[in-house]
């Protein structure tokens, strides 16, 4: 895409979300990626030898691996122009009062503070690369739940960390997983002890606020046997002018009879490549649910997966994608059935407008061992105008006996008669379109925590303004 278009995009974004906080970083390394920079990250974080080695090996893997040959073009990413590490504040903060005013203002502009105050004790917010604010809830401590930054976990819970880190998503999984493994910084570590039920969602906000900054968070979650919890992350990035890369890795271990839900709302500004590897392993009778909303970014590639590794495991993916202004939302899910009587469900909804492209790309793999398994895939695409597009790339590999697999796909346009119906009641075209779009994604939105649902509906409203001709 031409530079001028990017600028227009950002100006449009600026007028709506209109803020970019001045950068105030404590440490910032040079541009580009080298063995020295990776070593410097390790030095700065005072990492153990195994992690130093892991990073260096991952760097080698990253250099050797080619870019994916399928999907949207990533040729414009210039890895030399990315700054690999920024640490924003020196110490993690425990009380809301100590959080820098600038950061609070960012939340303020997004209408977050009410939720923040309400969930104060349960919130972890990441500002740039590290956790800027963290106040562990008393309840969590009492329950023995660990919810901290990855850096803290590596120091304080070394054995647990090493046992699981990189075991589901190896560095060699894909080029961006390798990059993340080499340069990761920040992200959350969660451990839910056996038979422990965490009632309030564990929340984490991610923000990027520095130009040319790569952000490579790493999230590691272990839900032990019989436990249940809900993790929520939300992002709305401020404006900046050059390409930026977000390549996160998320690993979730769902043990026997455990139940885990991972909810993400992402609204990166229109210049970001959002390339995320999310994977969960689900053991016997465990339940893993991904809920994923992608609104922004230049290109998003994200296919959360569930490895249904033992009998009775269940995996679910509910996603909504919103693509406009040449954005590409290439999203989907992967359900890998590895054991008998496993089940999975994928519901993917997308909205394309003003030249946006939404693709569903998904895999359902029922292996030979996975007898009597079930899978249901439902993809619904809504296209708002003639310049926008949608594609579906479903991959079904069914080898297990007695498998029941369903796939439904629909593509629809905003129906003129519905628009007329709503406009005849006094709504203008934008309001009518907003209602119809909001109604279309409602089945996903209703699964979100209330304040996120409100924020998402507000974002849709803002997005629809100006994109309705």
């Amino acid at each position: 895409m031409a530079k001028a278009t990017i600028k227009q995009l950002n100006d449009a974004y600026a007028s709506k979300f209109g803020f970019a906080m001045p950068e105030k970083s404590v440490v910032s390394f040079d541009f580009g990626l080298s063995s020295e920079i990776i070593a410097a990250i390790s030095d700065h974080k005072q990492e153990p030898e195994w992690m130093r080695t892991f990073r260096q090996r991952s760097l080698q893997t990253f250099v050797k691996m080619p870019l994916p040959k399928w999907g949207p073009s990533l040729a414009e990413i210039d890895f030399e122009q990315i700054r690999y590490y920024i640490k924003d504040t020196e110490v993690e903060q425990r009380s809301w009062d100590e959080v820098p005013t600038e950061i609070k203002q960012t939340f303020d502009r997004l209408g977050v503070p009410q939720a923040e105050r309400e969930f104060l004790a349960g919130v972890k917010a990441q500002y740039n690369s590290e956790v800027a604010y963290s106040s562990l809830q008393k309840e969590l401590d009492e329950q023995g739940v660990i919810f901290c930054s990855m850096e803290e976990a590596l120091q304080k819970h070394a054995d647990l960390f090493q046992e699981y880190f990189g075991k589901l998503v190896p560095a060699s999984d894909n080029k961006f997983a390798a990059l993340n493994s080499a340069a990761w910084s920040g992200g959350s570590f969660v451990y839910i002890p056996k038979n422990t039920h965490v009632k309030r969602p564990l929340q984490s906000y991610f923000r990027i606020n520095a130009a040319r900054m790569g952000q490579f968070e790493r999230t590691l979650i272990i839900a032990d046997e019989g436990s249940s919890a809900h993790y929520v992350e939300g992002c709305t990035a401020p404006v900046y002018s050059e390409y930026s890369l977000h390549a996160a890795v998320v690993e979730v271990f769902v043990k026997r009879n455990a139940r885990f839900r991972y909810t993400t709302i992402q609204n990166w500004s229109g210049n970001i490549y959002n390339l995320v590897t999310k994977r969960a392993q689900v053991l016997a009778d465990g339940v893993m649910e991904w809920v994923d909303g992608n609104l922004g970014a230049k290109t998003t590639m994200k296919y959360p997966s569930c490895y249904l590794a033992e009998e009775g495991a269940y995996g679910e993916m509910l996603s909504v994608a919103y693509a406009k202004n040449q954005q590409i939302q290439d999203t989907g899910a992967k359900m890998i059935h590895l054991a008998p009587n496993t089940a999975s469900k994928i519901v993917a909804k997308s909205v394309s407008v003003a030249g946006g492209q939404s693709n569903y790309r998904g895999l359902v793999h029922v292996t030979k061992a996975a007898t009597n398994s079930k899978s249901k895939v439902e993809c619904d695409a809504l296209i708002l105008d003639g310049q926008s597009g949608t594609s579906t790339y479903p991959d079904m590999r069914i080898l297990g006996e007695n498998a029941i697999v369903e796939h439904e796909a629909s593509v629809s346009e905003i129906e003129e008669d519905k628009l007329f119906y709503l406009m005849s009641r006094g709504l203008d075209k934008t309001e009518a379109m907003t209602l119809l779009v909001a109604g279309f994604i409602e089945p996903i939105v209703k699964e979100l925590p209330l304040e996120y649902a409100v924020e998402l509906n507000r974002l849709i409203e803002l997005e629809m303004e100006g994109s309705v001709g």
Partner: protein
Amino acid sequence: MLTLKNLSVRLHKKNILNKIDIRIPDGETHVLMGQNGAGKSTLAQSIMGNPNYQVTGEILFADQNLLDLDPQQRAALGVFLSFQQILEIPGVKIYDYLKLLYKKSHEQKLTPLKFKAFLREKMALLAFDESFLERSLNHGFSGGEKKKMEVLQMLVIEPKLVILDEIDSGLDIDAIQAVARAVNYLKEKHQTSVLIITHYSRILQFLTLDKVHLLSKGQLVKTGGAELVRQIEDKGFQSVL
């Protein structure tokens, strides 16, 4: 006052209505009758501004020619059409939707508490259960529920001119009475003009009628008083043509 002057309507290059002249003064209730395919719904849709129809002539209301206005501008002037074919809008919560309709049609704002009281009063008039407020607009509704939801929207908007296109089809007698109650309530409170399109006299016995128009094959063939309804019902359309 609604004035249709020399109104002709085409759909897909086919003439549906020819040179219709009708005047409905403020506060009057008129009935539009006619056989299937006579053009009754086309007339209603044309007044509301359905973009599928090519309309010539004049539709004057509130000192404006509606043909120059978009559907939402016509609605803003106080025109309301209850649809014959009622669309389902999944995912749109009725309470939020009605709140939006109220906001668009009223200058005065209501507190959430007062708006709830306002809604409760209108729903009681229609014997509508409040649990409907949590549901999606018309989604999974029975035919009768959809009709009542149209009337509820009408009561929330409080329009100056309402066109009811076969609002009574498929309604039981209790529901018909409820709809008539709602129409009379609006007329009393806001001097609303009413145009009712119907095949049956049942709903009409609960209303005070000023004029009855008979449409046949796209032409306005007769205009008379309330007695015309009885005549049509007793002897059929042929007897009055």
